[in-house]
Structure formats: structure tokens, C-alpha cells
């Protein structure tokens, strides 16, 4: 009988608590600081060295031509559907141009809809 009481006690305790689940799309849920989410690239810091594309374990980074980047004239293009969000590119970037933001809303009807942020400032 003691054990029956224990299970009931747990049930009553939980009844008085708030629901543990969150009404997600209507309530904004913030990720923890340091979360590895959508990649953002600061284009004015990038020098186009291509180290990020060489360290990427998922081969998700391709160097594409971009005139804004000097002197190499190319910038990394992140194929996010293939990315494993390990943040090696951000860790090894010599100019700290790559950053992983806390944005985890990575969805889209097409692969092309899921893209990295490219900031010019």
C-alpha cells in the first residue's frame, strides 16, 4: 500500500504543476547561449582563404565567387541541409568571420530555402 501511496503522491504533485510541454509555435522558445544553429558569415571580415571548406567534415561548404571579398574574390557558400553544425568552420576561421547563431528555426519546403545568413557589416 505504501507504494500505491507513492504513485498517487507523484500524480497529485504533478497535477498542481504547470504542464512541462510548451505551446511551441505560439510561445517563443530561446535556445541557450552558445547554441550551434544557423551559420552567419560577416562578409567584410572574410578573406576567402577557404580554410572553412577544407576543415568541414560534411563537405557542406563550397567556395563561390564574390566580388566583395578581397583579395581572393570568393566566399564560402554553406549548404545547410548537409551541415552537421559542428562549428569547426567557426573554430578554425582565422578572421572570426563565421559564427553560429542561436537560431534553430531551420526549415523550408525546398533545400534552397534553408540558407546561411550573410551579413555585410
Amino acid at each position, binding site marked *: 500500500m505504501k507504494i500505491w501511496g*507513492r504513485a498517487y503522491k*507523484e500524480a497529485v504533485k504533478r497535477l498542481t504543476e504547470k504542464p512541462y510541454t510548451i505551446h511551441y509555435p505560439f510561445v517563443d522558445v530561446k*535556445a541557450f547561449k552558445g547554441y*550551434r544553429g544557423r551559420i552567419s558569415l560577416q562578409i567584410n571580415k572574410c578573406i576567402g582563404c577557404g580554410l572553412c571548406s577544407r576543415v*568541414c*567534415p560534411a563537405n557542406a561548404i563550397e567556395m563561390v565567387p564574390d566580388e566583395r571579398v578581397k583579395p581572393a574574390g570568393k566566399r564560402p557558400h554553406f549548404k545547410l541541409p548537409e551541415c*552537421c553544425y559542428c562549428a*569547426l568552420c567557426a573554430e578554425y576561421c582565422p578572421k572570426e568571420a563565421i559564427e553560429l547563431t542561436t537560431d534553430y528555426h531551420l526549415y523550408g519546403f525546398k533545400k534552397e530555402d534553408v540558407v546561411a545568413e550573410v551579413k555585410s557589416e
Partner: protein
Amino acid sequence: MTYNLYFGPIHPALKEPINFTFEIEGERIVNVKPNIGYNHRGLEKLLESKTWLQSGFVAEHICGICSGAHNGCCYQGVERIFGIEPPRRGLFIRTLVWELERIHSHLLWLGVMLHESGFDTVFMYCWRDRELTMDLFEEMSGRRVVYSMNTVGGVRRDVTVSFLDKLKKYCNYLEERAKFYEDLIMGDTTILARLQGVAPLPKSDAASLSAVGPVARASGVKRDVRYEEPYAVYDESPFRIILREEGDALARTIVRIEEIKVSIDILRWIADNIPQGDYKIKFPPITKAPENEAISRIEAPRGELFYYFKSDGGTTPSRVKVRTPTFANILPVVKMLEGQYIADIPIAVASIDPCIACCERVTLIDRKTEKTTIVTMDQLRSHSKKYYKKAGGEKF
């Protein structure tokens, strides 16, 4: 007269793609033939095309639940190839990840086990507590499941003082919960009737079929890498081996709940004793390794995890071999199920904590003819016996 009953690879009672052929006589199982190979992803071959630094990030995708164990074990092997010794703080954080992961894996398993035996309320409770572990992981590493916490020569992120305080609070809460689950299971007649004496594995069978992890320990076999060959900081930690003699599904449940308590003790010890200093050493992304070979063993939540690396002096490994605990525990399942009822199949399979996606990796390719052959378990066993006899190893 016996009938064949085909079970899986897609079956509501199994969460993973594995196929069993059961020879049944009435409700009793006479013979079992397991058949794996529905989820082969060729990750060992893929690892051969990745640099030493990248290998761990591919390795952690072998298993979604024990990704930290794969990641850490892989880098432990790479460090042995290079002869690198990680800093002490790095080793402490590594152990922290492994033990937190053991808690989350065991809670997940406990939920699944109780769900299989029809106790869905506690399944929800377990997974709710597991969520706290996932939050800790997210705060520490930046991701809930694939932590990518380790690197060659240490860990990638440091832990803060506030995180360690949070960890201590979490340990206090979880200790209470683990006790609650133990009391609930041991005091519930329905659960006891469902688990006691089901899927028994005698000690002799567990030893001879090389069962690993909690399955072996629930049958009384002292087999734990943390005990046999302490790695990282386990030799100093308050680790103790949990053994049960019964060898049934209930014993496996109790072993896992007790292991949660041991993990909590180790986590507390880490939070109190973590040294200051560096947590990693710099490692270039693309570098040549010396010609060498290395093995790495750790105790993953499910049992012994084994990595073998061979280097030809290049920037990538020339051969990687992975043996996951589930692969070692498939044969004990066969032994467990013989003579049991059909209704006990989900319990028996769930009781080894199967992760089939991990264990899919036995195909042989003839280099000259490029023919692919699948090796049967008997052939492998006779080969291994011969090999060990030749090498003067332990006799079976």
C-alpha cells in the same frame, strides 16, 4: 511441429530495423535467427576519407544516443596514434560528458523498457527527467544530441562555475528520482510479474557469448572497461561496479538504475575536484600522422565500445574498425529468447538496449576480385578462436 515467425525489420514492437526468424512451437520459442544488415551506412569507409580532426565528427553520427561516447572514443584512439596526452581539465570534462550521457541513455532506456511492458505513465516521467539532462548538454556543448564536445587533445568548450553549480543541483534532484523509480519498480507487482524471470541469461552464457555492458553485469560477469582498464580520470573517481546475479530483465533494469546513481556520484566528484588550467591543446586541422596503429576502448552506456585505427603516415586513417556494444549483445538475445514466450520478445530485445543502427558493419570485400561476402557468426567465431590460439591468448 514448429512454425516460423518472422519479426521485423519493421514491426511495431521493435524500435529498430532488425529481423528475427523465430521457430515456435505453440507459444514457446524453440530457435532464433537474428538477421542484421538493414541499416548499413558504410561509416567505417567514410571515416577513411576524413582527416584525423574530422573523424570524430563523423564517428559521432554512428549513434544518436551515445554520440559523446563515439566522439570521445574516436579521439582517444587518434590521440594514441599521435602520442598526445590531453590536459587534465580536458579529461575531467570528457568524463563529465560520458557520465551525463550514461544518465540520459539509461533514463531513455528505462522509459522504453517500461513502455514495452505497458507502464506508459512512468515512461513519460523518465523522459521528462531526461529532458533536464538534454538541457544541460545544450548549455554545455551547444547541441542537445550531437554534442561534438571532444577534439584531438582535449575538449572544445570549457565549463563555467555556474554550470557546475547547476550540475550539482541536477544531481540532487536526479538522485531522488532514481530512488523513486527503483522503489516504484521494485514495489509494483505488475511490473515485477512482467520482468522477473523473463529473458534469463545465465552467467556462463553471458561470459562465453561475450555479452557486454549492463547485460553482462546483470548476469554477474565483471565486465566494465572503467573497471578493467580505467581511462580518462576513472581510476581516481568514486566508480564502483554494479553486479547482479539473477540475469533476468528485472536485474538489467536494476543494474541500470544503480548505474545512474554511480554516475551521479562521479558527476558530483567531478564538480568538486575539476582542476583549473587548459582544457585543450592546439591541433592543426590537416596534419600527417606517424605510421602507427592504436585501439581505444571505453564503456559506452550500452557496453564496451571499441575503435581501431591504422595509420600509413597520411592525413587520413588507412583503416578504422568500430565495434559497438549492440553487436556484441545480439547473440545473448538469441540465448535469452530460447524457451521463452512470444509475448516476451519485445521485453527481451528491449532489455539489451538495442541500437541496431550502430551495429551494422560486417561485410567482407575481397580486394582482388572485389566480391562482397557476408560472414556468418559461426565463421567469425571459429576464425577468432583460431586467431587467439595462434596468438597464445585466452582459451575458450
